[in-house]
């Protein structure tokens, strides 16, 4: 199996021009990833979503980087035609709420076919689509194929979304809070599907989330972001040994069922966390 990194990011910066001045949303973010499950964790405003979008060239901000390469190919300064070759086909993205990411005026089947346009046609495409729906553990692929998005529950919709994104068999999947809008049991079932697909297809998965406790059980490695920077990077199993006070704070503050406390520890934000990381 190919062990070389599929994504190489070096000093990624994203800046936005706003009426109140320039906002430096992502600052000098660097990381590499192979065919593994990498989590990017942070709270709102940490820059995690923008980082994910920058990999697909979908951020409205200004992207600069020393290096932003996917399997050796640079993703900087690509034109529309080159992006079309990559988006959906080699790198795909699943977003948070299928209510907003599925086209409400097209059936699921039509959207699946559209995702495979240029790669598979006609009956072959239809078979592939049905196979895809089965691989996301939808019990009645024919029915869902014919269904409209509003007829599906949250979990079904998200599974259909994943199926759609995998139609072109990409090598890297970026999931931006894919389970945050789902119920707890459904959430884990969808994660199991993602886990399965990533393993069988040798894909890389970037899992963007605000839930550190969820990703520590699901992903292989974790990047913790704050105010646009990566503050700490760890293996998921080693989160207990996290050194940075922000990471430790994030781990300590959610209420735990097994270990109840009178008061929850509150994160003391240290202004030095905003300083550039060495």
């Amino acid at each position, binding site marked *: 199996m190919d062990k070389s990194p599929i994504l190489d990011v070096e000093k990624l910066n994203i800046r936005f021009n706003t009426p109140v001045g320039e906002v430096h949303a992502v600052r000098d973010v660097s990381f590499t990833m192979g065919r593994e499950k990498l989590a990017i964790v942070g709270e709102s405003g940490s820059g995690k979503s923008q980082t994910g979008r920058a990999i697909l060239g979908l951020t409205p901000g200004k992207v600069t980087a020393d290096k932003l390469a996917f399997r050796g190919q640079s993703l900087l300064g690509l034109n529309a035609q080159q992006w079309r070759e990559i988006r959906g086909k080699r790198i795909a993205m699943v977003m948070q709420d299928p209510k907003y990411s599925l086209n409400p005026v097209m059936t699921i089947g039509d959207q699946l076919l559209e995702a495979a346009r240029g790669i598979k046609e006609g009956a072959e495409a239809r078979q592939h689509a049905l196979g895809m729906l089965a691989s996301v553990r939808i019990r009645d692929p024919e029915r869902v194929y014919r269904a409209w998005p509003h007829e599906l529950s949250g979990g079904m919709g998200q599974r259909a979304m994943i199926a759609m994104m995998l139609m072109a068999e990409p090598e890297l999947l970026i999931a931006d809070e894919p389970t945050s809008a789902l119920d*707890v049991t459904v959430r884990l079932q969808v994660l199991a599907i993602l886990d399965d697909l990533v393993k069988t297809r040798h894909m890389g998965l970037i899992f963007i989330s605000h839930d550190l406790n969820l990703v520590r059980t699901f992903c292989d490695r974790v990047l913790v972001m704050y105010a646009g920077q990566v503050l700490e990077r760890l293996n998921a199993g080693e989160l207990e040994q996290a050194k940075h006070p922000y990471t430790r704070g994030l781990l300590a*503050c959610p209420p735990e069922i097994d270990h109840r406390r009178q008061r929850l520890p509150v994160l003391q934000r240290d202004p030095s966390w905003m300083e550039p990381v060495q």
Partner: protein
Amino acid sequence: MTMIEIENLSISFGHGADRVDAVKSVSFSVAPGESYGLVGESGSGKSTILRALAGLNPFWSGHMAIAGQKLTAKRPRELRRLVQMVFQDPFGSLHPKHTVDRILSEPLTIHGFDDVEMRVRAALERVGLGPAFRFRYPHQLSGGQRQRVAIARALILEPKVVLLDEPTSALDVSIQAEVLNLLTDLRQHLGLTYVLVSHDLGVVAHMCARLSIMRTGEVVEIASADDLSEGRLLHAYSRQLLVASRGYDTQAIAAFGDF
């Protein structure tokens, strides 16, 4: 005496073929000063119960009483001083065109208080917001600050019961800790009774002494927070919920049943 008494509460929407029974004959009671939890996934009916208790939905059947007063479809104004609510979405529960001052003083004006200014300032202080926030608009506040204003608004009429509808679901985890601590402190200092609705077992275990686990409009199990933390749940669905809250575990997921 019980503070909140609910017996055989049923709520349905729509008619005929489109009829949805959101709440099916639910009963529970809450003692004064207690914090009671309603846990469930989406469609369980927990928020529907809360809204009916708040008086936002007049179409219910059964028996509901707060502080001994029987509730009817119509709510007299005085009852507003008894029970208040904090909503889930901090972005949607404050009027975008009203300042914090207006949001807090309006309930006071409606009920004819004269020391409005002093009460507004006291309310802001109580939730940890300084006077600097008084004339800001909601879009100038962060999520956590908005939720604090929502809490201040809920407390400004000095209610005995506060209904909390997923009060921290939309907040970052570090802000959630601050807001939950604030709610705990307020309950102790002001002797309030809470009914907290959440899908997050961790939040409910932290905030509540007793809870009802709900599924598709019915109460599946009533448990104490201790039962939760020691894993002493009886119903299979409750146990599944508890396991799911612990995080990703392939074997556990494989064992999930369809309820």
